[in-house]
C-alpha cells in the first residue's frame, strides 16, 4: 500500500514533467503586457490590442510617434477638396499583404464596411460616423436585421438576400468608394479637421478579404454576418504591417516577427518581439528583475510608488494622453427622487476649489502626476490654448458654498441650508480593486469634510455594479477618467455633450453644445480651436461637471541602456517594430523604421 502510493505519485509527477512540449522560442525583446483580447483590428478596444495592431497592420496613413504628425502609410499621398469634405487617397501600387497578395483600395473599403456593420457591433464603429451616409447606413442595417429576426422567413437564402441588399445599400449611400485598385475616395458629412488622424487609427486598418471570407458566414437564424474565431491565428492571419504573427497561445505568449513583404523592410529594423501576458503586477516586476522580461509596459504593482521614489533609472513615469477626474452628478434629482445638491454649479465649483491636488499627488498617489485643472492635457495638441481652470482656494470654495445657501448656521462644523437641513452625506462612488483610487477617495472625503463641513459616504462597488450606478446616475460624485483617442480637443470635450453615451454626469448645457456645434461648422482651424477652448473654459471654470485631478501617467520598467525605441511623447504611441536591445546586431540607417 505505502509503496504503491509513493510509486504512483512519483510516476505521475514524472509523467507531468515530461508530458508537454519543451522550451519556448526566445525572442529578442520580451514585453510584459496586459492580455491581448483580439487581433481583429475592427473589433479592438484595448490599448494592448491596439499596440500590437500598430505592428501588424498599417492604415492609409499613420501618425509619427515622435512628432504626432500624420505621415504616409499605405497611401503614399492624398488630396483634400477645398470644402474639406472629400479625401482622395492614392495607395502605393506596390503595397503587399504578408502572403504577397497585392493590397488594394477594395481591402480598405470592405474593412470599413465591416467596421460599420451592426453585425459586428464594433466599439469603434462611431469613428466612421463622420463619413457621408455612414450613420444612416448603420441604423438602416440594424433595422433590417431587427425586422429579419422578428420576421417569419428564416432561411439561408433569405439571410443571403438581406446581406446582398445591405451591400448594395452601402455601395450606393455611404461615401466610401474605390474607383480603381489604388484610389480610395472618402466623402464626409462635414469637414472633420482630425480626419487623417482617424484614418491612421487601427480600427480602420485594411483586411485581407480572401482570409476573412473563409471564416465568414451569414447566420440564417439572425441574418447577421458572423466571423468565426480562427482567422487571426498564426499561420492564418494575413497582415500588412511591419511585423507578422509568428505564434500566439491563449493568455500565454505571442510572438511577432518581421514581415518580409513590408515595404522597405530591412533585416535589421524590426526584431522578434514576444509579448507575455503577466497578470499579477508583482510577478511582472519579479520577472523583469530576474531578466526574463525586458519591458514591463504597464507597471501597476502596489509598491510602484516605492519603486518610483527609489530613484531607479529603469522606472519611468510618463504622462499619458489622459486625464484622471471625478464626475459630479448634474441631474436635478437622485434616482430615488431626493434633491441632488450637485445640480447647482456653485456647489460643484465649491467642491472643486476645496481640493488640494498637489497634496494628492505628493502624499496619496505618491507618483507626482502633473496636476490638472483642465480636461484636455495642456500642451498636447498643437494650436490649442488650454483655459486656466480653477485653482485650490478654500476661502473661495466656502464662499461659493455659502452663495448656494449652505452655511454652518449652528456652529456644529457642518453646513446647513436656510431650512436648517444638514448637507446630505456626499455619496462617492468608485470601483473596488484599485488602491490608488481608494486612497484618492479617502483623501477627497477628508478634504471636503475639513474644508467645507460636509460628510462623505465613500462607497466602493464591484465593476459591473459601479457601472450600473454610473449609468443610472446613482451617485453624487463618482470616479471618472478618460484617455484621448485622437489628437483633437473634441476627443475629450465630446464627453460633456448633451446625451453623449459617456456623459455619466448627465450634464447638459445649451451654450456648451452650441460652441461645439459652431466649432464643427468652422473651416478656419484657429477659430475652431478658440471655440473649443471657450467650450472647455465653460466646463472647467464655470459649470464644473467634472473635477480634473491630474494627468494620467503610465509607468514603464525598462533599462534605458539596453532597450531602445520606446516612445516618450504624450500619446505613448509605442511601435513594437522599433524596439531593439542594444548590443544585438544592428546596421546603419535602421532608425528609419516607421
Amino acid at each position: 500500500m505505502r509503496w504503491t502510493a509513493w510509486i504512483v505519485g512519483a510516476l505521475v509527477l514524472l509523467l507531468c514533467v515530461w508530458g508537454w512540449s519543451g522550451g519556448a522560442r526566445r525572442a529578442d525583446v520580451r514585453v510584459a503586457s496586459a492580455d491581448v483580447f483580439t487581433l481583429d483590428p475592427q473589433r479592438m478596444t484595448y490599448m494592448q490590442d491596439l499596440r500590437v495592431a500598430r505592428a501588424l497592420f498599417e492604415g492609409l496613413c499613420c501618425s509619427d510617434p515622435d512628432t504626432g504628425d500624420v505621415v504616409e502609410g499605405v497611401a503614399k499621398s492624398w488630396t483634400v477638396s477645398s470644402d474639406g469634405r472629400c479625401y482622395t487617397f492614392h495607395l502605393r501600387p506596390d503595397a503587399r499583404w504578408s502572403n504577397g497578395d497585392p493590397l488594394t483600395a477594395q481591402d480598405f473599403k470592405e474593412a470599413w464596411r465591416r467596421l460599420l456593420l451592426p453585425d459586428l457591433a464594433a466599439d469603434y464603429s462611431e469613428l466612421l460616423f463622420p463619413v457621408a451616409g455612414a450613420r444612416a447606413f448603420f441604423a438602416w442595417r440594424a433595422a433590417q436585421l431587427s425586422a429579419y429576426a422578428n420576421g417569419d422567413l428564416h432561411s439561408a437564402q433569405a439571410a443571403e438576400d438581406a446581406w446582398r441588399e445591405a451591400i448594395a445599400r452601402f455601395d450606393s449611400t455611404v461615401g466610401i468608394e474605390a474607383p480603381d485598385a489604388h484610389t480610395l475616395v472618402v466623402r464626409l458629412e462635414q469637414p472633420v479637421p482630425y480626419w487623417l488622424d482617424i484614418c491612421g487609427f487601427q480600427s480602420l486598418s485594411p483586411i485581407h478579404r480572401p482570409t476573412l471570407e473563409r471564416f465568414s458566414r451569414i447566420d440564417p437564424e439572425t441574418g447577421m454576418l458572423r466571423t468565426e474565431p480562427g482567422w487571426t491565428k498564426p499561420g492564418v492571419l494575413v497582415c500588412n504591417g511591419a511585423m507578422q504573427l509568428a505564434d500566439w497561445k491563449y493568455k500565454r505568449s505571442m510572438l511577432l516577427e518581421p514581415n518580409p513583404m513590408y515595404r522597405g523592410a530591412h533585416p535589421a529594423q524590426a526584431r522578434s518581439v514576444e509579448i507575455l501576458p503577466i497578470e499579477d503586477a508583482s510577478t511582472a516586476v519579479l520577472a523583469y528583475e530576474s531578466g526574463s522580461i525586458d519591458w514591463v509596459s504597464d507597471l501597476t504593482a502596489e509598491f510602484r510608488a516605492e519603486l518610483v521614489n527609489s530613484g531607479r533609472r529603469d522606472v519611468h513615469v510618463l504622462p499619458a494622453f489622459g486625464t484622471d477626474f471625478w464626475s459630479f452628478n448634474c441631474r436635478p434629482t437622485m434616482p430615488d427622487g431626493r434633491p441632488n445638491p450637485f445640480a447647482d454649479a456653485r456647489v460643484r465649483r465649491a467642491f472643486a476649489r476645496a481640493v488640494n491636488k498637489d497634496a494628492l499627488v505628493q502624499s496619496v498617489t505618491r507618483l507626482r502626476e502633473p496636476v490638472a485643472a483642465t480636461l484636455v492635457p495642456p500642451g498636447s495638441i498643437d494650436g490649442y490654448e488650454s483655459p486656466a481652470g480653477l485653482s485650490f482656494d478654500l476661502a473661495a470654495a466656502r464662499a461659493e458654498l455659502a452663495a448656494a445657501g449652505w452655511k454652518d448656521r449652528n456652529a456644529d462644523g457642518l453646513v446647513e441650508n436656510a431650512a436648517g437641513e444638514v448637507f446630505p452625506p456626499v455619496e462617492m462612488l468608485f470601483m473596488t480593486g484599485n488602491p490608488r483610487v481608494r486612497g484618492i477617495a479617502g483623501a477627497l472625503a477628508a478634504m471636503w469634510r475639513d474644508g467645507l463641513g460636509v460628510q462623505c459616504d465613500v462607497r466602493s462597488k464591484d465593476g459591473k455594479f459601479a457601472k450600473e450606478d454610473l449609468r443610472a446616475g446613482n451617485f453624487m460624485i463618482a470616479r471618472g477618467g478618460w484617455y484621448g483617442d485622437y489628437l483633437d480637443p473634441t476627443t475629450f470635450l465630446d464627453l460633456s455633450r448633451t446625451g453623449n453615451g459617456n456623459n455619466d454626469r448627465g450634464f447638459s448645457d445649451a451654450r456648451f453644445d452650441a460652441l461645439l456645434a459652431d466649432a464643427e461648422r468652422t473651416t478656419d482651424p484657429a477659430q475652431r480651436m478658440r471655440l473649443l477652448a471657450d467650450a472647455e473654459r465653460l466646463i472647467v471654470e464655470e459649470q464644473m461637471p467634472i473635477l480634473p485631478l491630474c494627468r494620467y501617467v503610465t509607468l514603464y520598467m525598462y533599462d534605458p541602456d539596453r532597450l531602445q525605441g520606446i516612445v516618450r511623447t504624450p500619446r505613448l504611441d509605442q511601435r513594437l517594430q522599433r524596439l531593439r536591445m542594444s548590443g544585438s546586431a544592428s546596421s546603419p540607417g535602421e532608425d528609419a523604421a516607421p
Partner: protein
Amino acid sequence: MTALILRRLLQLPLVLGLILTITFALLWIIPGNPMENEGRRPSAEVAQAMRRQYQLDQPGSFLAQYAARASGIAWIAGAHPTPFDLGPSMRHPDWSVNEIIAAGFPVSATIGLGAIAIALVVGSIAGVIGGLRPGSWGDGVTQALALVGISVPSFVTGSLLLVLLAAKLRLAPVGGWGTPAHALLPMLTLSLPFAAYIARLLRFGLVDQMQTHHVRTAMAKGLSRRDAALRHALKNAFLPVLSYLGPATAIAMTGSFVVEKVFAVPGLGRHFVDGVLGKDITLVMGVVLVYAALLVLLNLVVDILYAWIDPRIEMAVRPA
C-alpha cells in the same frame, strides 16, 4: 458494480443540464454585458447592436441554442457543423471556448496532478510519522507544519516561493509556462494545503486504527508497532484520504486561480475567473460544464476504488 457505474453515467446528463441552467441564471443576474469594456462606452445604437449580436436580448433562445450545440444535439440533427461546440468566447472573439479549454485544461491538470502527487507523498509520510507515535516530537512538528499548510493562503506561499526560489536564488523561472521548470513552483505551492490535509486525515485515521482489536491482536502476537501499523492499520486508515482525494484531485486539476495568477500560468482556473469578472457567458458555462463532468467522474472513480479496497462498501451502495 456495473449497475453503480451505469446509474452514475445516466445521471451525468441530468446533473450537467441542471448545473448549466443554474450557471446561466446566475450569470444573467450579474449586471452589465460582456461586450462592455472599461472606460469608454459606445453610443446607444452600437450598444444595442452589441446585445443583439449574441442574442443577449433573448435569454431563452440563447440558452436553448447553447445547450443544443454544447450537447451535440444540434449536430445530430444536422443543424450545426460540429458536435460539443461551446461557441466563441464573448470577450476573446478570436478564440472558441473549446480552444480555450483545450489550451488551459492540460496546463491546470498538469499542475493539479503534480500537486496531488507531491501532496500524497509528503502528506502520507507526515501522517504516518504522526500516527505511529501520537504525542511524540515528530507528531508535534508534522502536525504544526500541517496546520501552517492549511492556514497560510497560497498567494502568500506562492509569492514567498517566487521571491526566494525564483527571484533571489534563480532556481526556477519567474512565471510563465513552457518548460518543466515552469511547473515546479506552482505544483509545490498548490500541493501544500492538500499535503497538510492528507497528513491530518492519515494521522487521525492511523491513531484510530491502532486502537482496533485486530491491530492490537497483531501486536500481542509480537509484531512491532511499526509493522502492525504499516501492514494492518494503514490500509483502513487510508480510506478517509481516498474519499478526500476524489474532489481534491478535481479541484486541483481544474486549476487554482490564485496559483495560476501569481505564477502567470495560462491555466483553466485563471480563464474561468477572468470569464466571470468579464461576464464572458460562453466561457464560464463551458468551464463549468467541464468542471462538473470531471467532478462527477472522479467521484465515481473514488467509489470504485473504495469498493476495491474494502469489499464491504459495495454492499452498502447496492441496496438502493
